[in-house]
């Protein structure tokens, strides 16, 4: 591999302006490992620089809106997933999972889907977060910085709340649990809103949007797998032990079938919202040209 081929990984706007010059320099330069490393680091720098890669067109902005919608759907999906976790935590259901293949397969499909969706969101979201942080620091954008600190701050507050409740009493009463769950849901909504606003107010380039598009497709497919797993798990459990759904094993000691239906409805809405967002988002060729 010739070192000049690394220049292909620079943004198109940078290449149009500097590629010939740098190619000329490289032809005269004594290339070492440091040169390779330096050019790779330069490519990252150029991609993070909105002057070379921030000029996305209307199609890029549509894609960004779609990705924000899918991120919010993922957060709703995570909240519903915690309800599912509550349904599965008692020992009886763990035993049924071993005895009945459908329940086990459904459960593991949920886990695999959740892990893949999380990894996809992290893979697509980290480069965007890096660009937001960089632009916020470079331009002293306090609004962006404030939005970025909302999720970790709320997470710390949530952990502190739980820790204080546990310290004051070995068991947490139902009022505290209601408060904690309410705070968790509000924190999830506030975090999703803050991150979405930060993304909407940042100049993103077509490379990270393209990466996030693939991540969104994978995350949507994985959420669909988890939803299917929840349904299979529920149908299997209903067949094997119908009485389980009549017990108060749901969130806040509600009937299990109530929690199960809520989980399925929220997860299904999240998957449908993601599919609609993907359907309405421009294709790669369109947004790269737009």
């Amino acid at each position: 591999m010739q070192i000049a081929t690394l220049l292909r990984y620079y943004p198109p706007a940078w290449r149009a302006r500097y590629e010939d010059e740098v190619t000329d320099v490289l032809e005269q330069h004594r290339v070492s490992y440091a040169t390779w490393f330096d050019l790779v680091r330069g490519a990252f720098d150029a991609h993070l620089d909105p002057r070379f890669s921030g000029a996305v067109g209307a199609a890029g902005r549509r894609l960004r809106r779609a990705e924000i919608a899918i991120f919010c759907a993922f957060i709703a999906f995570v909240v519903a997933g915690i309800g599912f976790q509550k349904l599965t935590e008692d020992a009886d259901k763990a035993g049924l999972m071993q005895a009945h293949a459908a329940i086990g397969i459904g459960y593991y499909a949920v886990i695999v889907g959740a892990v893949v969706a999380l990894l996809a969101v992290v893979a697509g979201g980290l480069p965007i977060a890096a660009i937001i942080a960089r632009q916020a620091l470079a331009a002293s954008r306090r609004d962006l910085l404030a939005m970025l600190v909302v999720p970790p701050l709320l997470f710390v507050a949530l952990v502190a709340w739980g820790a204080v409740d546990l310290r004051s009493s070995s068991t947490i009463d139902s009022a505290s649990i209601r408060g904690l769950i309410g705070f968790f849901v509000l924190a999830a909504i506030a975090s999703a809103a803050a991150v979405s606003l930060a993304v909407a107010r940042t100049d993103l380039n077509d490379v990270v949007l393209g990466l996030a598009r693939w991540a969104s497709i994978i995350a949507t497919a994985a959420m669909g797998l988890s939803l299917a797993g929840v349904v299979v798990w529920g149908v299997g459990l209903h067949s094997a032990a119908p009485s389980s759904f009549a017990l108060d094993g749901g969130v806040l000691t509600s009937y299990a079938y109530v929690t199960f239906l809520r989980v399925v409805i929220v997860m299904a809405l999240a998957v449908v919202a993601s599919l609609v967002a993907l359907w309405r988002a421009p294709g790669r060729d369109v947004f790269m040209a737009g």
Partner: protein
Amino acid sequence: MPGSINDLGRFSGPGLLILSSLADGPKHGYAIMMDVQEFSGTKMEPGTLYGALTRMEQRGWIEPLPPEERRRPYRLTTAGEAVLRQQLGSMNQIVQTGQQRLAAAGA
């Protein structure tokens, strides 16, 4: 205000060397690298060179001249000269202070 060389972040050091190189006339990329190595002993790599050039061009400290085949020379602008003078002045102050204190300590 032309700004400060520190505005370039991790490219501050290379930026100062490039401005110093261009102080005696326009040069293209490879000539800058050779000149910097000659007067400072610093081996600058192309990724760093062009990372600094793009940032200084954006700030108006240097400007590109018409290309000569694939090579494009750059020259120092008035703003770039002011930044270089300011930075060299403060470095000179540091050098003088350090030398005076070393001399005083040795006496």
